[in-house]
């Protein structure tokens, strides 16, 4: 007993002799210090990978909910930005732009803080001056990219030029909005800083060329806002303080900035168009398709690629499962959601009459504005097969959309809305069948889903415009029926966009570079199989942009920056082309087509306030809200 007491007494007294280490002076062992990361090239890579991941690239994982929508089970119905434009409709949803859509605020300032922390520490790093210069250039590129994403959504925003330090006073951290002009000017200044500091090595990271391409895009956006802003006047506190809106007088300077940056990139000869001289339109269509199926085949055109290299959550994407035709769904339950509109298809020129718009003609009266449906009183043009009506149309249509009757993954894609019976009566979009001469004809071209890909509302899996989606999809492998399994890469900047930016800046500003701009547009057209050189107009440049950049998430912002949204979308219906089997001419199987409003759709109207997104959290951040929110 006594011994035990003694033991305890010794142990207890021993406790009193233990001392403290200097706990507070220790460096944390679970966090890396700036120098430890940035003095090691591998450390820089890891930090940069995080910044690039946060970069607001409007890629395959960009939806109205925001960026990187490829986490576990990213079920957003596949409702893409193209579906709030005239490019496409969703096979089921009729949604338009909601107040909470396409926001990027908190994430934007989080990225800016991360990159500011990097830029703050650069001067103190024990690395060579060249390495420091590269870090400054890359950081500036990322900042410029982020401020562009903020400015095009919110107008003038708080400019956090260096990282903020919290010293116990939260109020001191609140930065008011700068004017919209200051915001665009700062974004362009950052582009210039990136251009001056970055090297010319091509990789999946920023280079001098990506910075030039960004500047070309940014300056064109700002110039368009300045030029076309008066088309959609606004009022309110944010307008009075110039937090939104640019003066028309600023347009010339921004257009010139776009021209200068674009020309520098073009004349560097570092990039060119992918397969610029196809022998036939068929070859052009295939080249165009291949460019997007795997941009790594086209290093001469792809200026910046974002990789989706591995299948899996946060890595792959979902274009193949959402957007492929129902017939190729490979038992994935929700295919066929991206339906290119007839409105877009009409924009593709025919080789026979270059430089003019030739909407799809379906009847002998040439009436293209009658969307009331089949009428026995009209004489429709008849075709031997459903693709014949599109023959002679721009190769990019064939590379972008799955046309009725065309092959996709070696399967003829059946898109049919009904038939005209031998007696002249019709069955349209009603699931029926008719036996004529011992042959059974089905409304949708097949007995049951998924033997066809059009118009049946079953599961929302079939196109309701008459067109399926092809661009970006992987033709070489079957659809893997699961989330985030698509692994083709996305081109964020490509040479053709720079040419289009350049040409637009020239024609809109009346610059003297019209010859180069004409050459740029004709080079893009030559790549698409056009052989005739044509003069360019603002309308032609816009049409070229629509068809060349279709579904690259550019159209929404083009409608915004050119202030065309509220006039293009004023009680707007989008349109479909119904292919019908004409059984009146049996035994010859003929097809006719009917232009209609998209079935089961409503007209939509763009609210001018949507030219700017609402600023979140004004109750705490104290910022001036955008008009009418």
């Amino acid at each position, binding site marked *: 007993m006594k011994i035990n007491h003694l033991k305890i007494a010794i142990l207890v007294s021993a406790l009193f002799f233990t001392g403290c280490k200097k706990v507070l002076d220790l460096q944390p062992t679970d966090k890396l210090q700036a120098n430890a990361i940035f003095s090691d090239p591998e450390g820089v890579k890891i930090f940069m990978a995080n910044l690039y991941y946060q970069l607001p690239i409007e890629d395959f994982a960009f939806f109205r909910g925001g960026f990187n929508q490829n986490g576990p089970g990213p079920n957003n119905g596949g409702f893409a930005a193209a579906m709030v434009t005239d490019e496409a409709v969703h096979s089921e949803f009729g949604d338009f732009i909601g107040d909470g859509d396409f926001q990027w605020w908190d994430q934007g300032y989080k990225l800016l803080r991360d990159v500011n922390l990097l830029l703050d520490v650069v001067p103190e790093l024990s690395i060579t001056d060249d390495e420091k210069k590269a870090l400054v250039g890359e950081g500036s590129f990322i900042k410029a990219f982020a401020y562009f994403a903020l400015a095009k959504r919110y107008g003038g925003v708080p400019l956090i030029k260096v990282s903020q330090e919290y010293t116990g006073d939260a109020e001191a951290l609140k930065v008011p909005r700068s004017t919209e002009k200051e915001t665009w000017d700062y974004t362009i200044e950052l582009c210039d800083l990136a251009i001056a500091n970055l090297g010319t090595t091509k990789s999946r990271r920023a280079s001098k060329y990506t910075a030039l391409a960004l500047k070309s895009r940014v300056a064109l956006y700002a110039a368009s806002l300045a030029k076309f802003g008066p088309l959609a*006047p*606004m*009022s*309110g506190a944010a307008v009075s303080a110039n937090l939104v809106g640019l003066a028309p007088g600023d347009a010339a300077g921004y257009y010139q900035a776009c021209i200068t940056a674009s020309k520098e990139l073009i004349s560097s000869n570092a990039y060119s168009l992918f397969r610029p001289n196809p022998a036939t339109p068929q070859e052009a269509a295939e080249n165009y398709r291949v460019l997007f199926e795997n941009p790594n085949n086209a290093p001469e055109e792809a200026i910046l690629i974002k990789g989706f290299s591995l299948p899996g959550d946060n890595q792959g994407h979902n274009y193949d499962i959402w957007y492929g035709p129902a017939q190729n769904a490979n038992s994935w339950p929700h295919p066929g959601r991206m339906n290119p509109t007839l409105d877009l298809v009409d924009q593709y020129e025919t080789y026979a009459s270059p430089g003019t718009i030739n909407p799809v003609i379906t009847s002998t009266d040439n009436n293209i504005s*009658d*969307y*009331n*449906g089949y009428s026995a009183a009209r004489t429709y043009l008849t075709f031997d097969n459903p693709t014949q009506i599109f023959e002679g149309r721009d190769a990019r249509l064939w590379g972008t959309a799955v046309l009725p009757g065309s092959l996709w993954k070696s399967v003829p894609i059946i898109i049919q809305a009904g038939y005209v019976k031998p007696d002249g009566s019709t069955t349209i979009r009603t699931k029926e069948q008719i036996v004529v001469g011992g042959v059974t004809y089905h409304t949708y071209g097949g007995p049951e889903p998924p033997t066809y890909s059009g118009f049946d509302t079953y599961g929302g899996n079939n196109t309701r415009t008459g067109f399926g989606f092809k661009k970006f999809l992987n033709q070489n492998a079957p659809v893997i029926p699961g989330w985030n399994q698509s692994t083709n890469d996305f081109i964020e900047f490509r040479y053709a966009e720079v040419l289009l930016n350049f040409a637009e800046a020239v024609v809109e500003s009346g610059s003297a570079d019209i010859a180069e701009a004409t050459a740029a547009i004709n080079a893009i057209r030559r790549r698409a199989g056009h052989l005739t050189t044509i003069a360019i107009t603002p309308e032609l440049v816009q049409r070229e942009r629509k068809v060349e950049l279709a579904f690259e998430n550019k159209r929404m912002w083009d409608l915004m920056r050119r202030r065309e949204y509220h006039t293009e979308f*004023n*009680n707007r219906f989008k349109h479909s082309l119904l292919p019908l089997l004409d059984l009146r001419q049996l035994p010859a199987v003929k097809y006719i087509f009917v232009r*209609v*409003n998209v079935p089961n759709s409503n007209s939509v*109207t763009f*609210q*001018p306030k949507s030219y700017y997104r609402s600023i979140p959290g*004004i*109750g705490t951040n*104290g910022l001036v809200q955008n008009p*009418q929110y």
Partner: protein
Amino acid sequence: MNKIKLMLLIAGMISLVSCSKDNYDAPNAGLHGSFIDDATNELVQQDIIGGTQIEFIEHGYDPFEIQTMIVKTDGTYANSLMFANTYTIQPKRGNFVELAPQDLQVNGQTQLDFRVVPYIRVLQPSITIAGTIVTATFKLQQTVVNNVRKIGLYVHSDSRVGEPMRLVASEQNLNAPSDPNTTYTLTMDVAASSSILKTGKNHYFRIGALIDAGEAKPNYAPAVMIPL
């Protein structure tokens, strides 16, 4: 045993204690009135959606939020659920020469009429149908020097038809000052929109004219019901 009963009783009483209601009173005031043409004393026709908005700011809050109410097509408005307080009120984005903001004590159901100068008056409106062709004729009298951007004939199956709320429109861009002596004519072939304008139903037609000014909204003649 008694002790336990006592404890249960006390516990029960505690559980029954509750606070008196400390909620705000429900809104018991309201604001209503009309937009009246200062020259003719007639109501100024409006749009139910995408039309004139009355912005009101309730005093005593910082940061404040701008609230809005909409106006009925006949030019009257009412909001019967407002808190009694002082408000700064200003109609915005309207179809009349802009009014200055005014402060108003809203107590009970308060009436506030706005006497305005409409940008355009649509005079002698007439809408007739012959076969499937609807013809609208009217004259325009504008009160400002701006151009008239466009004139239009709008149709909807709902009586609250207007430029923003329509099934079909027949519009003509003027982009010039209107001539008070000209009779403007707009026609619409309802058969050309047979998939949208269903026959056998009443439809409402309304003539509108839009001034070329800022966020201006169109001015209208009253809607006319025509069975198709």
